[in-house]
């Protein structure tokens, strides 16, 4: 026995506060990335390894004959951030975003895709993606060599399996035996089928007629309902949205939905003042699509104008709304 557990405990206590700070920083960063990527319902959590857990692992490594030279340096999961996601496609997108975050992390960023490294073509099992990262921006008092962190991405199905097996098998108080191990492991075949069929169903849904418009309209209704509202013309809303969500926008409906949420948040006070006039102001103030029009007036006014005219919508309405928002919009040629 070479590890001085008391000394390790004391040294770990010294870096605990900066690790807590780093954990919060990384959790917020990852949540922000998932949000900007319009990833559906991500559950992002972070934790700093408890002292007893670090000590146990250090002891176990020694007993297994593969001791850590310095557990505070060698343990890469002292800070662990995890994102549980609904779709495998979102896991793949998030993987690309993390690997591309060289302004956030030192490079190269270590990645372990379990499907490629452990499972291959003839084995079933847990398919998470793990990253070994060192953030560039570290809290003071945290030596860089002790700042390695782990990020895990997995689907909700994999998360459910992982949590159950963690308790029943991995951290089991008594040896579960081969039969119980097999019973749990064979469930991973169902996970793979589940995730794949969910992905295929989603892809099929997104290809159905009216899907992008419905996603955007849903986001608009959610945005508009944050303010004083009256009954509105849903058919008109659908018509306007189908005119404005054209071209490439049809492929980025979820992204537009997220942009609408951000826009509504950023322009909350101005929108609230305008929509408070809904009972006596311009009739379009009752309509949820007005939020999309205001957003496009700020970011893409000429594209808005082009689509509006191409869609044979009355230009007078757009002119009025540009006035309401205080936006400059030249009349069509």
């Amino acid at each position, binding site marked *: 026995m070479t590890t001085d557990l008391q000394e390790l405990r004391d040294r770990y206590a010294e870096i605990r506060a900066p690790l807590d700070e780093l954990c919060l920083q990384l959790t917020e960063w990852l949540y922000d990335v998932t949000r900007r990527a319009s990833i559906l319902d991500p559950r992002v959590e972070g934790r700093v390894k408890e002292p007893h857990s670090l000590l146990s692992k250090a002891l176990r490594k020694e007993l297994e004959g593969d001791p850590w030279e310095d557990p505070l340096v060698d343990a890469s999961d002292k800070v662990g951030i995890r994102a549980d996601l609904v779709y495998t496609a979102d896991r793949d997108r998030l993987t690309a975003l993390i690997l591309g975050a060289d302004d956030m992390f030192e490079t190269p960023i270590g990645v372990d895709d379990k499907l490629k490294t452990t499972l291959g073509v003839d084995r079933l099992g847990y398919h998470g993606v793990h990253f070994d990262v060192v953030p560039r921006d570290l809290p003071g008092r945290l030596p860089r060599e002790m700042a390695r962190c782990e990020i895990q991405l997995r689907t909700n199905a994999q998360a459910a399996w992982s949590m159950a097996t963690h308790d029943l098998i991995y951290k089991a108080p008594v040896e579960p035996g081969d039969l119980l191990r097999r019973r749990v492991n064979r469930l991973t075949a169902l996970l793979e089928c589940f995730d794949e069929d969910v992905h295929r169903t989603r892809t099929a849904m997104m290809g159905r007629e009216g899907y992008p418009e419905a996603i955007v309209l849903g986001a608009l209704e959610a945005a508009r309902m944050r303010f004083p509202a009256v009954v509105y013309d849903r058919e008109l809303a659908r018509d306007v949205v189908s005119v404005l969500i054209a071209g490439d926008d049809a492929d980025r409906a979820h992204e537009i939905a997220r942009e609408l949420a951000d826009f509504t948040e950023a322009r909350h*006070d*101005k929108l609230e*003042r*305008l929509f408070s*006039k809904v009972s*006596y*102001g*311009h009739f379009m103030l009752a309509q949820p699509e007005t939020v999309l029009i205001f957003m496009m007036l700020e*970011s*893409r*006014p*000429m*594209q808005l*104008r*082009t689509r509006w005219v191409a869609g044979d919508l009355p230009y007078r309405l757009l*002119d*009025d709304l*540009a*006035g*309401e*928002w*205080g*936006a*400059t*919009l*030249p*009349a*069509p*040629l």
Partner: protein
Amino acid sequence: MAKSIDVGQVEVLRLIGHRVPRKRGKDDTRRLALTEVVPDLPDKTLEFFGLRMKKSLSAKGQEVEVDERLGDPPLPKLLTEFVRETPRDLVATSKAAAEELYRSQGGSRYEDESLFLTLDVSLGGRPAVAVMKLEKESGVEWNEETTPQGEAVLMVEVNPRLFLTDNTRVFKAALFALLDGKFVGVVSDDQQGDPTDVADYFMRRFLGCRPRRSPAVTTQSFYRTVARFVDKELTDPEEKARVDTALKSEVNSNRPRISPAEWVGEHVPEEHQDRLLERFREAEIPTTTFTKDVSRLGNAPSRTKWTTASGITIAGNVNDMAERVRPGEDEDGTPIIIVRDTLTSAG
């Protein structure tokens, strides 16, 4: 650059109007018809005025500031006091402003009388003030009536007392607020065909203001921004040629103003329009309108040259090039350049 006014934040709280005649000579004895009471108007009416003003200011507005070369012009002082005071005396301020308008405007044989409004405005919750000058219009009113015989009839009547309709194009509006303690405003004048009218009478003599950004600096900035955009962000030679020629033609034209958003809509391919508007915003160039002043452009290029893939060169005055030379495609998609002109010499 100091903060700008967000016209979209305007909310009209109260307004008061006065009839302001124009003198038609020394013998014209018509006087100001000043009112004494702020009318109790329904929200819908106030909103109507608010939207009309916002539309005018956002489409044609020019940012202005007090013209200190005029000494201590009375209107900015009056309106600054109004914005600062609590409670705000709209009647007294409005009467004083109307008298100032009556003094500052010259006689016109073409205009009869106007309606002058002072509006107590909230600008995103902070106090602001606006003035509007509206010319009289005629319109037709209609009423569904019933004849003594019980037959339905639609009666129409000419109403010569209209001042502001949904389609009114002729009026002047100005909105002022204190931003970071500085009195700034946005002014629009739908009679901008005559630039001296804005500069001398409404903007300068009445409002005591001048454009907030130097026209020469803004024109230079506009020119450089578009030129850089053509050079760095357009790749298609045909698009480059068109936009570059339009830019040079614009600065060489006799038009007194440039309206960047309109210019972009007219000369820039659709897929690039929003990107150029974004470049204008980054360079703090107003997208509504500004007075053109090419004095900082030096010798603004008045000629341009196009070279084809086979080495043919077409050169000429930018205005002629913009008007007479068009790149395009023929029916089978072959690139062509059409020059609409008369050949006068060769060799």
